[in-house]
Each structure stands twice: as C-alpha cells, then as structure tokens.
C-alpha cells in the first residue's frame, strides 16, 4: 500500500448508482422492456416538444429519424450517406450500435431532466424511434432479451470503419499510420494560387462587427464590417 490513508473501497450500492454504461455487447443493460405503444406516450409527453412528434424536428437538434430505407436494413449500410448532395444526417442514419441509443437516452434525456426515465421508459422510447425508422413493427416490445436481435436490423450497423490512424492505441485501427501524406516543398511549389472560396459580401457582418472583436491596439485592428469592404 504505497499511499496509506488515501481513498477507500467503493461499495456495491455506490457502483450500482453510478455504473450505468451500456456497451455494444449490451453488458450493463438493465432488465426491463417497453412497447412501441408505450413509447409513443412517453415520447409525446417528454420528447416531442423538442424533437418533434415524429423525431423529425431540427429546431433544437438534427432530426433523429429519416433517411433510411428497407434496403439499408437489409444491407446494414445507409445508402444515402454515399450521396454528397443529401442534406443532413439523422441519428438513425449513423447509428451502428443499438446500445449507444439506449445508453444515451438513459443517461442524458430528456435534456432538461436527464436520468429521470425508468429503464422501461427507455426501452419504450427506443422502440418508438426504431419503429419510426421502420426497424421494428408497430406492435414490437423491446427488451433486454431482444436488443441483440434488433441490433442485426440497424440500417447502418455496417457503416463504421476503424481502418485508420487516428486511434491512439493498438486496436482498433491501423496503429497510428497517417492517411494523408504531404511534403514540405520550399521553392516554386504547386500551381499558381487561385482563389476558390471566400465569404460573400452579404455575409460581411454576419458574425458581428469585427472591429469590436479585435483589441483596440495592435499591429492590426479589426475591420469595421458595418461598412462595405474598402469603404
């Protein structure tokens, strides 16, 4: 005991109170269940005000559902993610592990009253959202027992890659090998530079008057964006 009198054992009750994480293999998932019907009630009472009745609202956040198809459920890849012109990405378009949705709603929602839902309520709203996305039928009852089955129907369950170099451990990933290789050319490099993108004049003051966002003294002052450029 190199650090006498510092710290103490956690009690079983304490661990139970705080160890709420649910892993992709569903370790940590508490017993319980909830139907789509019950989920509709919970949703309308506690969630719809922010996320919209059908989880479609982007008033406070991106929509939770939408953008997935039957084909996606079969393939486990959301086809629309390959379309650069598709505007937003819903939660269901990205969700690859069902545990994630359950865990997050359980720990963090409703936003203003996190951790107020019972496990059964979490099962039920999760079922509701999955039903909206066509993942489970209207009469479905989601439970600790069948989560793993439903996982197999998630539209984007095969949508993740870990074959990259940005994970700071051995696995998953390629162990840290960068994907982009640049060189440090010093003279007469690349093509003659040509402007491709800049803010349009009408956005000049969109972030407020930049004169007021720079120190009053300095090598450079802030531009007065309440006046047109060059004025």
């Amino acid at each position, binding site marked *: 005991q190199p650090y006498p009198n510092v710290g103490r054992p*956690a009690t079983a009750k304490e661990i139970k109170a705080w160890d709420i994480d649910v892993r992709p293999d569903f370790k940590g998932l508490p017993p319980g269940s909830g139907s789509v019907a019950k989920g509709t009630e919970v949703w309308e009472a506690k969630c719809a005000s922010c996320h919209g009745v059908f989880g479609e609202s982007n008033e406070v*956040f991106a929509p939770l559902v939408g953008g997935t198809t039957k084909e996606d459920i079969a393939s486990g890849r959301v086809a629309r993610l390959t379309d650069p012109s598709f505007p937003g990405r819903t939660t269901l378009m990205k969700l690859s592990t069902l545990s994630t949705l359950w865990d997050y709603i359980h720990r963090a929602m409703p936003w203003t009253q*996190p951790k107020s839902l019972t496990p059964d309520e979490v099962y039920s709203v999760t079922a509701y959202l999955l039903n909206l996305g066509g993942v489970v039928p209207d009469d479905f009852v989601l439970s600790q027992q069948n989560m793993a089955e439903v996982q197999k129907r998630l539209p984007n369950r095969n949508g993740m890659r870990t074959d990259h170099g940005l*994970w700071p451990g051995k696995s998953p990933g390629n162990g840290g090998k960068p994907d982009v290789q640049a060189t440090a050319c010093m003279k007469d*490099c690349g*093509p003659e530079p040509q402007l491709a993108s800049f803010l349009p004049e009408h956005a000049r003051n969109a972030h407020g008057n930049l004169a007021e966002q720079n*120190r*009053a003294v300095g090598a450079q002052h*802030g531009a007065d964006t309440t006046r047109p450029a060059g004025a």
Partner: protein
Amino acid sequence: PRALATANPVDPQGGDPNILELPEHSRGLGQPVATDGYGKPSKYEANVQRRQSPGLTQTTQASVSFAPLQSLFGIVTPSGLHFERHHQGWWDIDPSKHRLMINGSDERLLKKPMVFTLDELMRLPSVSRFHFIECGANTGMEWGNVAVPTCQYSHGMLSCSEFTGVPLKLLFDMAGVDYKKARYVLGEGADGSSMTRTLPMELVESGEVLVAYGQNGEMLRPENGYPLRLVVPGVQGVSWVKYLRRIEVGDQPYGAKDEVLHYIDLMPDGRHRQYTSIQECKSVVTTPSGGQVLLDKGFYNITGLAWSGRGKIKRVDVSVDGGRNWRSARLETPVLSKCLTRFNLDWVWDGKPALIQSRAMDETGYVQPSYRQLRAVRGTRSIYHNNAIQTWLVQESGEVKNVQLAG
C-alpha cells in the same frame, strides 16, 4: 492601405500631445493594492472575449464558444478565454461533495473498486504539464468552403494550459487493474450529459493521461470541468471528460454517443470512421488573420500557433505567396510535446495582395497537408479533424480575408 496609419506623425518643432501634456496618471495617485483580490483585464481589453458563432448551434447549452486566438500571445490561453464546449450546460460543482469512482466492467479486470474525495486526490503525487486541447470539430465548418470570417471562429476551439493532476496510471495501480485484460478505459462526467468516451489503455500506461484539478496555477474553471477533468494529451477535447465522476476499465470499446453519432468522420464511400481521436499536426497564422486590417505598409511580425497530437513540433514554414515559396519561422521555446508552439516570422509588406499560409511539421516527420491533399483522401464531409493549411488574403486595402485556394 486605408488612411488608418498610426505611425503617429508629429511636427518636428512640436510633438505628440500624449507626451507634451502629461497624462492624469503621471500627475495623480492611483488605486490601492488588492482593489481586486482576484484581478481582471484592463477595461480597454473588452473586445477580447470568447464568442459563439452565430447560427452554428440551436441551443446555447449544447454549444461552443470560441477562443479569440487573433488577440492572444505566446502559448498559454488565459483561463477566462479558454474555449467552451458543453453538451448539457456547465455547472459550478461543490468540490467537497464531489467524488471520483474507479471501477471495472467486471471483477476480473480490477481488484478493488475505489472512491476518492478531492481532499484525497490532492494528497497523491501530482504532475504539472503544458498541453493543448483542441475540439475534434475545430475548423469543421470549413471542410467544404470558407464559412467564417476570423481565426476565432475557424480555429478557436483550441486552448493550451498548464494542467496539474494525478497520473491515472497511479490510481489504476492502487485499484489493482489487470493491465493484460483491461485494454480500454471509460471516462464519465457528472453533468447532465454524463459524457462518456473510451480511451486505449496504452495512453494511460504512457503516464500521460491525468486526472486533473489544476489549470494554469489555479483550479479548473467551472466551464472546463471544475473540480476534476481528464487530461488526454494529443487527443480531441471531447475525450477530456469534464466534471469527471467515474473511470471504468473494460475489455472492449464502449460505443458512447460521441463515438457512434458524433465525432465520427464521414468518408467519401459513405462510411464513417469511428474512434478517430488523435489531433494531427496543424498550424494557423493568428496575426495577420481574417477580419483584421493592416494599418500601413512596412514591417510586420507574422505570428501563429502550431501543434501536434503526436508529439513535438519540429518546424513551421510560412508562405506569403499562397504556397509557392516558403520560409521557416522562428519557434518560441520551450517546444513541448502535445503542446502549442508559437512561431514568428519577419515580413515587410509592400502593400500588394499577399496570401499568407503556415505549414507545420511534427517530430514524426508528418507534414500538415493542403486542402487539396486532405480532401483527396477524406472528401469534404468529415466535419472532424480538419487540419488543412489555412490561407489568409491580405488585400491592397490592408483588410485580411479568409480564403481557400483552388486545386
């Protein structure tokens, strides 16, 4: 340049009234010591503030405020200007009631689950280290095209502090972690979002991951996780769990909300990269930078920041012709691992348009890429981990614009 020149011309027979007429402060008695037991910046510094980017988020509690990099010096970010990222708002937690729990996903992985008070954690051996923290989404708005006017908004989810805390490895040793089996670590916050993120055990074993209470000599600020946060050098900010209440060891990654629905990088093939965490080598010129105006031709000190999640900065090159020719900048010392490095370079502005860029290289030899090089691999929809070279256009008027170059 516009007629803003401040070179302060005076009549050689006369002089500057600010010199000839002695100011009040040379002729009177000032304020007492300890007027403020905890002082604040000059009232003339009121423009130097952290700010939200209008329209970026629909709520203010799940949102971001950006550090005013264009007005900062050196490498230390004043704690009052540290960027903010909250998911369910920030809290000022009573430290005497705060607890840290260490547990295992099951008993095989950790012998003795433990609870610590702040009083106890602060008795343990501590280390103090300078590190940058950058949000994985920093510069995220600019993947496709120019979206914001200044480096506050383009690069301001970046800060750097001296952190003090206990190496997490030490707590794991106390709790009897089985390092063979427990290769993953979960950090969890005490706020509403109870943010969770997975870390690889390798990082903890390196001794770099800290359970930190100190930041720039004092306690963490409430906005930055008072009284406890994880410090995970080189890794994106979301993993530096704030209001830290619990750390669990496990034998697989946890697939947290911010590992499955956010902080995933959409590739051109329609799949997302998951568990992207390292902040690769990057730099930005902070002055002159977008939204500023050069007051005159003549000499300027080009200055900026460089950093790498893989170690120390080795070199920073600066171009004033849009990347055709480069000169190596002076690096301020100390150059520290996974820490901001300040660079400076002499420049005489001739009044003609100039395209200013900086390009950093880290000790692994990795070179910061151009937008062309980065997009060739990752497309434009990643949101996260945009470490491309930034270009500022100094116009003839002296006004500096955020631009991106073709091809």
